[in-house]
């Protein structure tokens, strides 16, 4: 039966090539639009090397402090708050703290030629939470971190530019005029991995006065369901911390998931609203992207069905019921939707790759130089294909249900008369 429908649908597509083309283009555009929204989000939130646990990660890098004197500050996360409230957390599988990415002056030992690179000061857990592809050597260990010895992991970019391709591990480079021993070399990291990207990674304990730095904290939950439990534990620690010194109230209001971190949340009161607003915004874009083409397609399908009245009349006269007619129209339309969907997927893929800078650039990538590589695995995931398919079905139901319903209700006499 469906084979007949399929043949018929193809035949109809061929009959009026122009309208078929318009229908397919309309569908493809809708799918492209939805996929762009989805992919731009996906690139930043899907698990990709080295941030392979984004779905289980929570971040925190801001804090609110209210003083009894009336002052109120929103500031970057300070070491004291990190040490007292976040580093003692027991619920997460692992935790790590990283100093905000900074520019560092780097030169080969003894050489005067200076270069500026992105420096990330971190701890040993960092290497367990993220999975870095090492090409040489290894990461620094807990012992290295605790003792604060000057060791560094460098990117291939530095290995190439400073060591000119010679073996780097074991050699020494000056970072901000302090000699560091190279422990390992990792592949270049895309700037889209905003929590792990850098050119150089050192233990933050190797920098004097690290207690004055500003931090980004990450907690890796054992399971996604633990997010609330982690927040709870932070609240408990925060309460204890606020009890020690009652002249001020610390409010961490976090940590946040990766997709929440993408929203620019300026104050803790904002957070919940901003998250809701973002959801509504995405729904609105989805609705616009689906409804407008659906109206077009509905109108075309209806016109087409009017042309096929006699065929429908004959089918009815021979006993086809309502549902089989609705089924036929939806099925025929689904073929257009799927062809359009496939085309839309390809278009969105081309758009993301060619408009990468426009679509994905953030304030970090504008100011810094670095790789802006896209991980293709983010595109060819099951969830992306599923999203395309769901969008196709949604569009199909939206655009074909009214015509299908109309067709099923057509009185036989009228249909045959025409």
């Amino acid at each position, binding site marked *: 039966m469906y084979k007949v429908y399929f043949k018929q649908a193809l035949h109809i597509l061929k009959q009026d090539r122009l309208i078929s083309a318009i229908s397919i283009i309309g569908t493809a555009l809708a799918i492209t639009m939805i996929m762009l929204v989805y992919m731009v989000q996906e690139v930043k939130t899907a698990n990709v090397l080295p941030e392979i646990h984004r779905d289980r990660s929570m971040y925190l890098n801001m804090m609110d402090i209210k003083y009894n004197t009336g002052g109120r500050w929103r500031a970057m996360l300070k070491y004291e708050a990190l040490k007292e409230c976040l580093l003692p957390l027991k619920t997460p599988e692992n935790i790590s703290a990283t100093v905000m990415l900074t520019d560092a002056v780097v030169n080969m030992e003894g050489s005067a030629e*200076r270069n500026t690179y992105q420096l990330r000061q971190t701890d040993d857990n960092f290497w367990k939470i993220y999975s870095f592809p090492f090409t040489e050597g290894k990461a620094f260990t807990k012992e290295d971190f605790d003792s604060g010895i000057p060791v560094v992991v460098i990117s291939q970019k530095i290995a190439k530019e400073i060591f000119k391709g010679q073996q780097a591990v074991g050699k020494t480079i000056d970072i901000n005029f302090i000699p560091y021993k190279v422990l390992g070399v990792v592949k270049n990291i895309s700037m889209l991995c905003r929590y792990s990207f850098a050119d150089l990674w050192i233990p933050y304990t190797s*920098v004097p006065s690290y207690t004055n730095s500003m931090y980004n904290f990450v907690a890796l939950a054992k399971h996604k369901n633990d997010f609330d439990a982690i927040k709870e534990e932070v609240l408990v620690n925060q309460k204890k911390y606020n009890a020690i010194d009652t002249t001020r109230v610390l409010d961490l209001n976090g940590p946040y998931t990766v997709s929440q971190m993408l929203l620019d949340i300026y104050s803790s009161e904002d957070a919940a609203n901003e998250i809701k607003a973002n959801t*509504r915004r995405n729904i609105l874009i989805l609705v616009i992207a689906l409804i407008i083409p659906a*109206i077009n397609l509905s*109108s*075309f399908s209806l016109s087409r069905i009017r042309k096929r009245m006699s065929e429908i009349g004959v089918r009815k006269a021979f006993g086809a019921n309502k549902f089989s007619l609705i089924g036929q129209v939806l099925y025929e339309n689904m073929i257009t939707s799927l062809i359009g969907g496939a085309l839309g997927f390809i278009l969105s893929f081309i758009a993301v790759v060619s408009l990468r800078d426009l679509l994905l650039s953030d304030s970090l990538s504008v100011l810094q130089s670095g790789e802006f590589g896209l991980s293709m695995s983010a595109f060819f995931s099951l969830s992306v294909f599923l999203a395309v398919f769901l969008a196709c079905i949604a569009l199909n139901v939206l655009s074909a249900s009214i015509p299908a319903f109309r067709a099923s209700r057509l009185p036989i006499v009228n249909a045959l008369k025409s």
Partner: protein
Amino acid sequence: MIKHILKIMKNEHKSNTWIMLELTLVFVVLWFCFDYLNLMIQRKTEPKGFDIEHTYAIDFGIKDEYKELYHLLSGKADNDTLTDIFVENSLRITEKLKQMPEIEDVCYSGNSKPYGFGNSYYSFKVDTVYAMALTKYVSSEYFNVFKIKVDKNPEYDWDNPASKQIIIGANDENNFGNRPIDEIKVVASGRDTLRIAGIANKFKYLDYERYSETAYLLMKRHKLIPYSYEGEISFRVKPSADVDFVDKFTNTIQDKLDIGPFYFINLTSYQKQKEAVLISWGYADNFKNIFFVILFIVINVFLGIFGTFWFRTQSRQSEIGLRCATGSSKKQIHGLIIGEALLMLVIASIAATIISLILGYYEIIGELGVPSVSKAGHFGIVHYLANYSVTIILLSIMALIGTYFPARQAMKIQPSEALRAE
């Protein structure tokens, strides 16, 4: 003529309902896109009160051996001999920069650079009212570097650090703390009374924001440390020298600015800084999204009108044939089809404008989390006329293009063939 077209539209109401529905919906969406863009363009065209062309921010680090000392000092007041190590060396850096022939002027500021990620807001008391002002701690060269015009009060010497003075800038209504800015003589900040040393031109934090009340305070000597949020050094380059300046500067400077506790890290143009801040404030994303939405709608409207009229000329072949036979010229037939599309657009636009105005009045779009122009701005009729005109012009163009091919096809119809089908 219009009456005649209306009659045709009524007969074709089945397919017209769809295209009218689409046009109305699309008109509303476009209206709000242009509503937002309209205001943004207005704001952008207002002078923003400063000029960042040919200006650069220079970043310094503090050498590790001085770091503990720096953190010991931070927040400490004047005349500390230890502070001198930092301040003297910092002044030496600016001296060196000033000697460079390419550089016009060099200034300090404390967490106060244009397009900075961080900003300070303080309240100043004017008579009995408080003004929450964007507060900038600057050296007096700041005004030259960023070309901010100041009407200086000749009675006061802004450059004298001992005197308690302030330079202020007004908001949109030319007020500072709800008082006309020209009438203000002193403002109070904490226990201090600050005399108005001058009035600066209106300043906006970002191109697309409104003017904000601004206060400029002379930077204290012990704050002249170009590190962290404490102090920033910015400078203006002669226009003739401003070609690949970042590279040239970095190559010539190397370690020449590593003075005392400081070392040179890098140079950033304010143009780049602006780009980054516009992204971080969401403007870049808003414009991007609006662009894609408009593009999407325009293409869809074209497809919709094209498809609908294509079907129509096919199903009305015989009618068109009859028209030809009874003496209608090709032009008239073309006009009839275009007229029908435009008339539908006009009717849809009236409905859509009413819907848009109601949605705008109740601020429903803002509630949805979409960047929208809040009612607070209250625009005159000109603003709405502009929204309407741009939207309808854009859609009319699409209608003209969309009906062109179907109309041309209709004109090709041979009366004899069409009539024979009848």
